[in-house]
């Protein structure tokens, strides 16, 4: 049996063993309800939650009072967008987002337009996956309540110009929400420098546990959101329900680790990324990187392997756990909406894979992956009629294909 190697760090990350160690006592001996105010069991749990809150706040330069614990980034995104709309909707009813946002942002916006009488502008992206700031400025009207643009893209890894977006939003007096599930710990984030009003954070994308996330909500000037759930009014009335101290501690520890190790980790990942990309490109032609070459995090490589369908390549490299942009693995058979938005031609979108590198990826893993990918690319291209035609100088765009 060949050992499996994990290359899907954007889907989720393993929990760092240091995080597990911090969490374990809160599954056992420390079991108090952090909201119990009248005995030491509660106080002990509450103290742990508050230390975690400080750690989360610190990594984005926020005040701990501005951090709301949630079940994850999907909840945070829903709470930010719908909660803000609920609170301010009778004054302003226009939201601006982008076509390549995560489904939970797009669906929250669609909910507002279908059920809450909101107008939604979906900004296009340029070929490099980034929004055009001039388009953003043009889209803002006196009715605009919110701009929601993610920090780092889950599928293609590009970094949006958060500081510039924040400046525009501040000048036009529009709230700025950013989904930073893939950005925390990967790029420097500063809610004040970047004029961010709301930020969504996820635990399991940063070596913390699944089932926990956070929402940053600015206090000065105060940003108000309506709660989604009725209950005991925990989390400053914005998110009811008893917190899980174990999960909060896990998220806090994940943030604490990143606040000291981010630079070193990025350096390591940059080296591994270059090793992988150069390794493949030096042995195979026509490998395309999707999204900006420089405005991207090193842990995400979304590649198109021209003339080879993505799922067949995944089958060939089955001991490497990667993700497919080709979507032939899913029920829809449609290639990724994100690659489409970048203007990647459908025939190339079908050939795409996302290879994710992370904290526990080694040089040896990358070398093995390069060897395996290169040999499968060569094998499958020898099998591909399109490769053969391209080698013979046939222009594939000139053939009258029968779409089916």
């Amino acid at each position, binding site marked *: 049996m060949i050992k499996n190697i994990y290359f899907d760090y954007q889907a989720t990350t393993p929990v760092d063993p240091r995080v597990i160690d911090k969490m374990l006592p809160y599954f056992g001996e420390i079991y108090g309800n952090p909201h119990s105010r009248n005995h030491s069991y509660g106080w002990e749990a509450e103290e742990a939650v508050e230390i975690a809150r400080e750690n989360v706040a610190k990594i984005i330069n926020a005040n701990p009072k501005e951090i709301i614990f949630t079940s994850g980034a999907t909840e945070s995104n829903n709470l930010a967008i719908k909660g803000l709309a609920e609170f301010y909707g009778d004054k302003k009813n226009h939201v601006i987002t982008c076509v390549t946002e995560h489904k939970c942002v797009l669906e929250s916006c669609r909910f507002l337009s279908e059920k809450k009488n909101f107008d939604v502008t979906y900004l296009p992206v340029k070929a490099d996956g980034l929004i055009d700031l001039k388009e953003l400025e043009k889209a803002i009207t006196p009715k605009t309540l919110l701009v929601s643009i993610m920090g780092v893209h889950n599928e293609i890894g590009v970094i949006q110009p958060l500081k510039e977006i924040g400046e525009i939003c501040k000048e036009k007096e529009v709230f700025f929400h950013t989904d930073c599930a893939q950005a925390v710990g990967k790029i420097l984030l500063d809610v004040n420098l970047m004029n961010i009003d709301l930020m969504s954070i996820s635990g399991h994308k940063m070596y913390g546990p699944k089932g926990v996330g956070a929402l940053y909500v600015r206090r000065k000037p105060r940003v108000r959101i309506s709660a989604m759930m009725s209950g005991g009014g925990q989390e400053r009335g914005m998110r009811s329900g008893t917190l899980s101290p174990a999960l909060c501690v896990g998220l806090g520890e994940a943030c604490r680790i990143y606040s000291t190790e981010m630079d070193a980790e990025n350096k390591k990942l940059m080296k591994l990324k270059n090793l992988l990309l150069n390794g493949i490109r030096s042995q195979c032609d026509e490998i395309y990187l999707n999204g900006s070459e420089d405005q991207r995090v090193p842990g995400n490589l979304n590649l198109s392997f021209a003339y080879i369908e993505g*799922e*067949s390549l995944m089958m060939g490299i089955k001991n490497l756990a990667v993700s497919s942009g080709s979507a*032939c693995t899913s029920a829809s058979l449609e*290639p990724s909406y994100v690659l489409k938005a970048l203007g990647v031609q459908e*025939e190339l979108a079908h050939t795409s894979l996302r290879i994710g590198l992370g904290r526990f990826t080694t040089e040896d893993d990358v070398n093995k992956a390069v060897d395996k990918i290169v040999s499968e690319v060569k094998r499958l291209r020898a*099998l*591909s*009629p399109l490769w053969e035609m391209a080698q013979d100088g046939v222009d594939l765009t000139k053939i009258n*294909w029968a779409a*089916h």
Partner: protein
Amino acid sequence: MAYSKNLIDHYENPRNVGSLDKDSNEVGTGLVGAPACGDVMKLQIKVSDSGIIEDAKFKTFGCGSAIASSSLITEWVKGKSVDEAHSIKNTEIANHLALPPVKIHCSVLAEDAIKAAIADYKEKNKK
């Protein structure tokens, strides 16, 4: 999604990969599918004077199921008469490879490919 043994075998060890001389009168070529849809099959047959398929070759751009379907059909048509090959149904391919519902279209494409190759052969040899 777990694929069947037959499918994985044809994907990992595809039979009859390659090309025949498309200009030869003995050879019929079928090219079906579209790159934008994620699968293209090229299937070629070489037919003897007595109307028997002596050789078959394929190349496929597509998922594992598409590669396996085309590999399987080249194996099946060899030694058959043109008419027998023409009567192969996509459902037989789908059953043999235990294709999941979402991949049935791969077997349809393989059936289309052999029919296109036969049509090309007949067109070339019209008397």
